[in-house]
């Protein structure tokens, strides 16, 4: 580990209320499954020195339904998502996406709340949440607030979250229409995505992409065109203009644009 341990300070929370009190009084970065935080610490690229371990908060590991909403605790691991019958029934594409996050070791530790808070535009789970209009439930000592995932990110790795807030749950309304998910990486397993697409085929289609913009994005203009009866070729052309992919170590802007357009056509054909 390239980060000096002597500089690091950890508090361990044993209840959500305790965690929230600590976050009110001290500026600390929460650690859940540590699969992102420790990569940063191992390579010495992570700046924070004060941390709060929330792994023990089992109260954030429940999956339930309420008023037709699916409510997933923020500390739910990808493995737990893959084992949940209710998630498989309501949001099968979330199960599919979970199986493509890293290897088994990462799926056992990585959490849905962590995937959201980390804010990577290449996150595998977040495009799914975007396409199903999930709502992020954040809590502080002052109370709870709910922010739609599609208003949660304000830019590259930045969010509307305050330092005293913790993501406690993700709410997913009932999804009407066929769900479709595809991750494109260098290899089938253990790859960071070049492009992720999650979509729902409905009279007003919902189409979300990862790795084509500074944040996970909904292709609003493309959705609108399809809802108004545009041909899929026309919609793909609009998509190509709408997204703003970049060249980076994993892929190029041209490749991402081309493949995104192809994925859109594939989605449309598969869900016809």
């Amino acid at each position, binding site marked *: 580990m390239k980060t000096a341990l002597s500089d690091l300070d950890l508090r361990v929370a044993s209840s959500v209320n305790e965690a929230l009190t600590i976050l009110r009084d001290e500026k600390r970065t929460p650690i859940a499954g*540590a699969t992102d935080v420790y990569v940063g610490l191992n390579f010495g690229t992570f700046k924070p020195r004060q941390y709060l371990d929330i792994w023990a908060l089992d109260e954030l590991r429940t999956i339930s339904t309420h008023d037709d909403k699916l409510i997933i605790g923020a500390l739910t691991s990808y493995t737990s998502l893959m084992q949940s019958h209710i998630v498989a029934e309501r949001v099968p594409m979330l199960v599919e996406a979970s199986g493509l996050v890293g290897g088994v070791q990462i799926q056992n530790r990585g959490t849905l709340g962590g995937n959201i808070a980390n804010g990577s535009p290449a996150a595998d789970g977040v495009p799914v949440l975007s396409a199903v209009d999930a709502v992020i439930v954040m809590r502080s000592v002052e109370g709870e607030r709910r922010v739609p995932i599609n208003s949660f990110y304000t830019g590259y790795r930045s969010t509307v979250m305050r330092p005293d807030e913790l993501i406690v749950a993700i709410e997913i309304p009932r999804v009407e229409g066929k769900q479709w998910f595809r991750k494109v990486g260098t290899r089938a397993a253990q790859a960071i995505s070049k492009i992720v697409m999650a979509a729902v085929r409905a009279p007003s289609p919902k189409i979300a992409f990862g790795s084509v913009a500074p944040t996970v994005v909904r292709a609003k203009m493309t959705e609108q065109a399809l809802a108004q009866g545009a041909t899929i070729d026309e919609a793909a052309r609009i998509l190509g203009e709408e997204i703003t992919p970049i060249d980076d170590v994993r892929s190029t802007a041209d490749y991402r644009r081309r493949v995104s357009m192809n994925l859109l056509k594939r989605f449309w054909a598969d869900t016809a």
Partner: protein
Amino acid sequence: MQFKLNGADVEVGAHPMSRLLDVLREECNLTGTKEGCGEGECGACTVLIDGEPVCSCLVPVSQVEGAEVVSIEGLGGNHPLQKLFMNEVGAQCGICTPGMIMAALTLPDEPTLDDVKTALAGNLCRCKGYSAIYRAVLRWKNNEIQMADATQEIQR
């Protein structure tokens, strides 16, 4: 900090943000667990926490308080899967081997070749190739038909 390591209660004095990997290697003197990439890609540092394979390079030791940890040393040296990795020549340089074995331990009975590949998707081998590894695991699970498929793959 206390946890159970390979069946025995241990108490360690490490910084709570120490990596489980470093505590095992440096404080518990169990050097069977290897460090590869340090970013959760290669699986060389795989150990079991409460029966689940995890990358010990990404686990702060604070998170194993009260948990049960099993490292490759916990298998003793005469575990059938260890023997099969030798007999099927499933190891060359050996760095990936402890992690491969720990990840394979949690496979259900009668896995298909595909199941084995999925279970080991988080473990990279950079010298031996995978077919002999898959063969060792399938033989351990007694799946001769799938084993023939793994052998064919190595011949292609």
